[in-house]
């Protein structure tokens, strides 16, 4: 299937082992094209991808790209074909990305698990299958660092601390981007009066008094003056209500206690087996009720144990996430101890399928394995069993 120049014999061997494993685990192999429309990628993962993918133009001016990953085409194929759910799709093949440290084409394999309403089971299955995949390749699991994060818990902590919604959204957006999160926390602890300094005092006054109607009229007039099209883009009411929120947010402070609780939460980095206890130590004294998110977390841990994943093998890091807005809950990564290259990565992306045109929300979780990196480690004898 692949030319010998790009795929080593080790990669071929582990590829076959994975095909067998995925079939045994009940996933259906999904074919996708190599040349794809770039729009869904730029639209969901964002413009940051533009410099990392191989982009070209079709004759009609449309943006095309060489397949940068499998998740999006597999999900789009599902949306187009409308198969019964739940369903698990497997894939293995070349993906193409511009990277400084390796060739622009490499092989990935993985499973996308769509429509399973029991999220704990599906999450656990994704992590268990990715570890089984690494093992089937010949990687010694004892030599791996497996890290797990959960955006749901972070969101629950913010809610429980009673932050204004504008702040919750801003912090959630930065989750997984350490530098941006730190900056946002800093602004939140200091408060930010200067944020309002360049605003018209009349507008601030109206916003403080929550005069949404008057603000909307003012803004509508300005929009009409500028000749902005009235039915596309931000409406006057939308700008007015965000201004009110902005003023409320600027005047909100995070108390020292709340900030230290949030920081203590974000600092949690322990084995998954101890995570429940550590979370309790942070939430308990602060009187935080993490509610459903905690139940989800604990149910998932039980499901992981049921799927024979040793919780002592997995590290829970509270601050670990991905700052892409279709990721919603679980994220995980596996790499060799002390190494930086991810060998396997996955997560839950409940928001992606509706973005790609599904007519109702479809829960989804998946993982992919980097066969070139795995093959490389094995050839060097670094991760072998």
């Amino acid at each position, binding site marked *: 299937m692949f030319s010998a120049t790009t795929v080593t014999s080790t990669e071929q061997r582990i590829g076959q082992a994975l095909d067998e494993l995925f079939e045994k685990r009940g996933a259906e192999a999904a074919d996708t094209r190599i040349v794809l429309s770039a729009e869904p990628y730029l639209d969901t993962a964002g*413009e940051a991808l533009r*410099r990392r993918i191989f982009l070209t133009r079709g004759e009609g001016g449309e943006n095309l790209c060489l397949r940068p990953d499998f998740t999006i085409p597999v999900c789009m194929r599902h949306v187009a074909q409308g198969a019964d759910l739940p369903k698990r799709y497997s894939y293995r093949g070349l993906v193409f990305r511009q990277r400084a440290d390796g060739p622009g084409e490499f092989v990935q394999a993985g499973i996308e698990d769509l429509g399973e309403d029991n999220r704990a089971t599906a999450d656990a299955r994704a992590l268990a299958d990715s570890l089984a995949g690494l093992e089937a390749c010949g990687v010694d699991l004892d030599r791996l660092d497996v890290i797990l994060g959960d955006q749901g818990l972070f969101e629950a902590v913010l809610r429980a601390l009673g932050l204004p919604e504008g702040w919750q959204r801003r912090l959630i957006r930065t989750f997984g981007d350490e530098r941006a999160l730190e900056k946002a926390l800093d602004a939140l602890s200091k408060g930010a009066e200067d944020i309002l300094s360049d605003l018209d005092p009349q507008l601030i006054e109206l916003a403080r008094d929550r005069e949404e109607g008057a603000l909307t009229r003012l803004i509508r007039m300005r929009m009409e003056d500028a000749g902005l*099209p009235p039915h596309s*883009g931000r409406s006057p009411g939308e700008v007015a209500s965000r*201004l009110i929120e902005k003023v409320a947010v600027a005047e909100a402070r995070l108390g020292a206690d709340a900030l230290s609780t949030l920081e203590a939460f974000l600092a949690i980095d322990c084995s998954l087996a101890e995570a429940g206890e550590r979370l309790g130590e942070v939430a308990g004294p602060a009187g935080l009720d993490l509610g459903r998110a905690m139940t989800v977390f604990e149910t998932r841990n039980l499901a992981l144990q049921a799927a024979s994943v040793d919780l002592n093998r997995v590290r829970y890091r509270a601050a670990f996430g991905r*700052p892409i807005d279709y990721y919603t809950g679980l994220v995980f990564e596996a790499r060799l101890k002390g190494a930086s290259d991810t060998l396997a990565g996955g997560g839950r992306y409940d928001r992606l399928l509706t973005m790609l045109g599904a007519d109702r929300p479809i829960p989804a979780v998946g993982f992919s394995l980097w066969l070139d990196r795995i093959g490389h480690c094995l050839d060097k004898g670094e991760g072998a069993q």
Partner: protein
Amino acid sequence: MSLTLAIPSKGRLMEKALATLDSAGIVVKAGETRSYRTSVEGFEGLEVLLLSASEIARELRDGAIDFGVTGEDLIRETIADPEHTVEFVSRLGFGQANVVVAVPDSWVDVSNMEDLGDVAGAFRARHGRRLRIATKYWRLTQSFFTRQHGIQSYRIVESLGATEGAPAAGSADIIVDITSTGSTLAANHLKVLGDGVILKSEACLIRANAVGRDPGARSMGDELAKRFGV
């Protein structure tokens, strides 16, 4: 043995570039109208070409010319890694303009990038599409929004001219564009965000990567660079 230097082929940029060369003792006479060749006095073996400013950036990237006078904005937009690909010999003190992020001035709730991040993050849920940015600077935009400000959710609409009209035309929500006085932006009811200056650009003398050039041409290039204070 010869060395090529390209300068902008029209307008004030060309005049100023000619004056700069003149004060370095290099007298360039533009040929007949529409000719892109020139006659050069004051530097043996130097050939001066007249090209469009954006073409000069591309030719420098590809190493097709040895030197070029063009805007820093075009260099940073055209070349992925300018620090390693070309050398900034001298900033020439003309052609000053800023590449900026500008939003409709009726967006009274948006005065900095943090605000814009909030708006972009919530845009899709409300409007069923990403926030659209009209620009001809996709590389600068992407690195400013994503790398510097951690904003992921937006779409770039490539614009080839009259970018400032895009919000009123409904083809984009905001713009990233170059401005010298800001008057065009103001006339179009756009305001620059407080921390929305992506780049303070001016005309620069740029030297292409000299790797692969023979030693003779290289020392000639060094000589030329010296005339500009290096």
